[in-house]
């Protein structure tokens, strides 16, 4: 089941201006399934925050449709089971951590009993018990992010939209946040992460969408984006053996006494390479497909010239 449905979504800022406005999102279609962690990536100005704001009804689409939790975003009900952490949140500074969480609960229609029960659990989850009664205006950036994540969870949400959630969080906190995301996923919740920290998305997300210049240029699983299926690294006792790869099969990228890296036209041709090594009585210690980082994949994607812009 799709918890987020975006069809042909276009957003043009200042569309009535004589210059025709600024296209922030251009015919974006996207489906996010229940229970997955989805990473939204893109350079600055790609349209990530605009997409989030359209999902939450903070902006009105120029055209296209958006549905959240089965409801059109124009309906307030679509946000009943949604937690949102904005980029650079400015929560009312006159609230303390606990009163902000209580306010969030009340605005979501959570009962007083549940509010009282959830607050200590959430404060513990984000490691903010010590600062529970301190005014938010005295919080550091990292503490605001932590309490922001807690308020996202106050209404027991099915969907979390987190815009740069680890901004200002220390490295230990980042690991804790990642563990929270994974725990939320294990509870069947959907998490949509908008982050510049590609390594963070790589470690947590199941699928990734890459936005560039308002277009969704790639959407795939992290696994698919980071594996170079035709490249393999073989660790073996190669010694001085000369290993030849037929040109129609692929190329040899690297060869040393201990390691061979090959790039094959077809993945299944790795069997021929292994057969060749075995025929030469070479002891093979490991064969593994080579992976690229999400960062590399991201840069390759956004530097490709999109069709129609060339």
């Amino acid at each position, binding site marked *: 089941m799709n918890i987020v449905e975006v069809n042909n979504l276009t957003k043009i800022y200042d569309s009535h201006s004589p210059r025709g406005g600024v296209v922030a999102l251009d015919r974006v279609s996207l489906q996010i399934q229940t229970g997955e962690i989805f990473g939204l990536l893109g350079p600055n100005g790609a349209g990530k925050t605009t997409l989030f*704001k359209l999902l939450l009804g*903070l902006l009105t689409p120029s055209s296209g449709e958006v549905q959240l939790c089965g409801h059109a975003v124009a309906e*307030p009900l679509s946000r009943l089971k949604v937690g949102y952490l904005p980029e650079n949140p400015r*929560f009312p500074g*006159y609230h303390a951590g606990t009163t902000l969480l209580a306010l*969030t609960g*009340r*605005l979501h229609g959570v009962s007083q009993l549940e509010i009282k029960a959830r607050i200590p659990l959430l404060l513990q989850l984000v490691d903010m018990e010590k600062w529970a009664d301190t005014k938010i205006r005295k919080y550091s950036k990292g503490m605001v992010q932590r309490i922001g994540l807690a308020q996202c969870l106050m209404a027991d949400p099915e969907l979390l939209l987190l815009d740069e959630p680890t901004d200002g969080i220390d490295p230990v906190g980042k690991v804790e946040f990642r563990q929270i995301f994974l725990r939320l996923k294990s509870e069947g919740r959907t998490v949509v992460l908008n982050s510049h920290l590609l390594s963070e998305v790589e470690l947590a997300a199941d699928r990734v969408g890459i936005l560039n210049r308002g277009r969704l240029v790639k959407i795939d699983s992290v696994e698919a984006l980071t594996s170079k299926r035709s490249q393999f690294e073989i660790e073996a006792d190669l010694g001085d053996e000369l290993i030849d790869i037929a040109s129609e099969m692929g190329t040899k990228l690297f060869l040393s006494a201990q390691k061979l890296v090959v790039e094959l036209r077809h993945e299944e041709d790795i069997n021929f390479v292994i057969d060749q090594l075995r025929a030469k009585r070479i002891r093979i210690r490991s064969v593994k497909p080579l992976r690229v980082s999400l960062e590399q994949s991201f840069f390759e994607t956004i530097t490709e010239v999109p069709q129609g812009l060339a």
Partner: protein
Amino acid sequence: MNGILRDTIAELIDRKILYVFLGITVIAVMVVAATSSVDLRVQVTGPGDFSGDSPSLFVESAIVKLIGGFLSLLIFLAAMASASLVPNMLEKGRADFYLTKPLSRGSILLKKYSAIWLTYGGIVLASGLIVYLVAALVHRTADLRIAYLFGVSLINLSIWFSITVAVGVLTRSTPMAIMAAFIVWVAQTILAGHEAIGEFIGSTAWKHVIDGLYYVLPKPSALFDQATGLCVGRPIEDWIPLPTSLLFALAMLAFAVTVLKRKEF
């Protein structure tokens, strides 16, 4: 409503506005207490507006004027103090927090308006009542008709808040909200004499414009004068100020809701 109301009270407490109202109330109580040594009835025998009135009426009238002035000051302060609440709520980053909750924008705004009215209305009523009770005790006179003044104070607050809320939504600027309320206050004071002004204007079209403005704009000062009159037994002769003022407040709220629904954040 509960959430927004508590949020508004939390902001009020944090901004220490309560202390200002408390301080003014204490000063007013001290001033009223100081009048206990003045034998107001002595003046009844002397020349003045009240020579034909009974001593108790004169005391009541003085108290009504004192409470009326005090309530006017509180209303002015409440309008100024609350003018920033909506612009603050809609500022970048904070608007995201409120507007992404499962409530329609219209409902959020009306709840905020009601919360402001209840909170500040409560303070104005409480302060006014304390001062009136002290005055009533000191001068041993009490009249339930003073409720007209308290009632009209709540109506006037609803009018001023409708202006500050609407301009706050439109401009997201506290100074603009305060300025708009001030301009309306000046305009309604001038337009109270619209018939006299008409005498000096030759053009019929301009006379119609002046009359039109009089009927469109709210008339909180006229309402207050009428309530003061009711407190001392003068009947209402002109019923125009009440419905036109309430209609203006409703129109401002409808405008504010429409603008907020269309705004992008």
